[in-house]
């Protein structure tokens, strides 16, 4: 592949991933609805996962599976499998955290009758 095109891809892939992260973080920091905050956190994690997977990519590499096709084929480059394994773990953990977060949102809604994060501050100072 052309190197300048690849350079563009570099900015594109990482840029997208980071942008997704920042969008998620923005949502978590600014949106007033608890649900949107939780969504923001999830989006942030997704961006991060994208970033991690992108880090493991190698030019021209295939999926790290030694299928028959790969063993018999000519392309011997594989992408880095470690980030993929890590991302799997990160996704699962992210799922767990999101589930707990949503259950807390349910509790908070039950308790306060609102999802506005500014009104849920009985604990302060």
């Amino acid at each position, binding site marked *: 592949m052309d190197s300048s095109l690849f350079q563009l891809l570099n900015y594109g892939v990482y840029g997208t991933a980071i942008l997704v992260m920042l969008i998620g973080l923005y949502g*978590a*920091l600014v949106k007033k609805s608890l649900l949107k*905050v939780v969504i923001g956190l999830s989006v942030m994690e997704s961006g991060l996962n994208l970033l991690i997977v992108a880090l493991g990519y190698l030019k021209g590499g295939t999926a790290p599976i030694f299928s028959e096709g790969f063993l018999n084929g000519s392309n011997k480059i594989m992408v880095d499998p470690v980030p993929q394994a890590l991302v799997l773990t990160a996704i699962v953990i992210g799922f767990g955290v999101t589930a707990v977060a949503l259950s807390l949102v349910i509790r908070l809604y039950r308790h306060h009758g609102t999802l506005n*994060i500014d009104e849920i501050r009985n*604990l*302060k*100072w």
Partner: protein
Amino acid sequence: METYSIIFAIFLGGAVLTYFAGKLNSILQDILFLGSVLVPTYLFFSGVSFGSAMPFSLEGISLLWGIDHYSWLFALIVLGLGSLAAVYAIGYMKGKERKGYFYFNFILSVMSMLGIVVSQDLISFFIFWEIMTWSSYLMVIYNGKDIQRVGIKYFVFSAIGAYAMLMGIVIVHSITHTFFIEDMIQAYGHMSLQLQIWIPILFLIAFAVKAAMMPLHVWAPGAYSNAPMAYTSLFSGALSKMGVYGMVLILVTLVSRLPQGIWFREVLAWLGGITAAVGTLWAIKQDDAKKLLAYSSVAQLGYIITGVAIGTELGMLAGLFLAVMHALFKGTLFMAVGAIEKQTGTTNFTEITGLIRKMPWTFLASLMSIIALAGIPPLGGFVGKWMLYESLITSDHYLLVILIFFASTAGFLYCYKFLFGFFLGQEEKEWEHVKEAPATMVVPMILMSVFMFVLGTFPGIILKPINNGLMDLGFVDSYKHLWETSVIFNNWGDHVILQPILYSIIAIFLFFLILVVWKGYKGTRYVTTKDISTSGEVPKEDENLTFSVGFTQPFLRAVAPVMRRQIDKYYTEFAKGLEGLFEFMRRIYTGNAQTYALYVVVFVVIVLLFKDVLF
């Protein structure tokens, strides 16, 4: 040295046992209490010898316990007054609640004070210092009165002092790598000038707090008057002397080797003088005997500080002699107030009058102490005051003499107020059934009065140990009798006595005493406060005509401008301001989850921005 271990084990075990014995039997508790103060006292004076020390180590720190003549002198104050106060406390505490608590802290206080004087290293010194602080704090809050203000003020000032000392200790340690006081003294000469100035300051702050020196004295009146009197006699008599102990130690061993040391001395001496004056003025203003004595303690400690700070041979002698005397007479006075409080339930001059016939022994003890306090011959107080004046004059501190003399003279006002307010004046019906305090309370007072009397004539009894102590500290290069520079002492055989002229004073005094008491006892009649008429007007029931309340008014009006500026107020304002600031600062925690998350982002961004500076 096994003795130290045994002594401290008895103190500790005794304290705990005494506390729990209260659950079983009150008398057993009293006996245990007395035992755990008196037995170690006996063991100490019979079993501990000079020069031998007990080294051991804790947490990798080498510690050393031992005594020299200097610390022995203070051990004498602590244990002597401690034992008498303990006997007194038995009577005083009878029937009061929280007896176990009182006994526990009493024993711990005595133990910690003894610990301070036997400590030859800074760590055990500090540990005992802190135990002393918190055990006395627990006594200050014993009554539960005003504890959030008075109690915490006491502890905060003590802690400021103690932490200043701790800072000094660890700085010294970072240079010497040991905690021995000996090593600190050795290494002091090689330190940088900055440290040579700062280390004594840090230590002196701690000692000045305990010795209630201006401007660190504001805790004292409240704390002294809040603690139970049986303890206050020890508190004011012995515990405050720990400040003097440390001060003399620092002044003699460190400051005297510093060329700039003269400034330390001047500042301390003046602060002491001002303390004496201010303490006296405030004492005059009080209507409560506890408060009066508390301020008086502050004032008396001012004399002591001035004496030791002047640092001439006589000045040091005067300071330490006054320290011993103060332990005696202030101990007695607080005991007397305690006895009155116990018998009448109040300590207010405006309420009590004419107890002289109800509590004659208490009166006698009070009279002796007041004479000693005022510095009137022939009691020991005179000797101390004389030496103080002489040392001030011979070292050309004329202004200071005037200040001290003013304080001392003004002091007569409150001395009189105390005597008159309680014991003289008309007998009120209200106090008709008041009886003399029980023997356990009276005997210690009388004993101490006797000591005061004896010391007035034979000051050598205590001057010699003081002399030896100062020699042990290395106050002067070669052994000598420091009192020889004074004009009032005679060496009589081996004993130091006052000029024979004093004997005639004693004789006259005794004559008048007998005359007045005997005569007065015979020819009095009952007169109530209201049994007078002023210009034909009969005073109403609710008019307070007690003489002792009003007679100081003119004087107080004269000095009112001075007294308007209370240091206490500034401290309070400062503390309030701080709390306001803290209140403002904790608004950082807004309670909004998003704000907290924003903090995280801000933190990360700021650290990233400054990463080249920080890392």
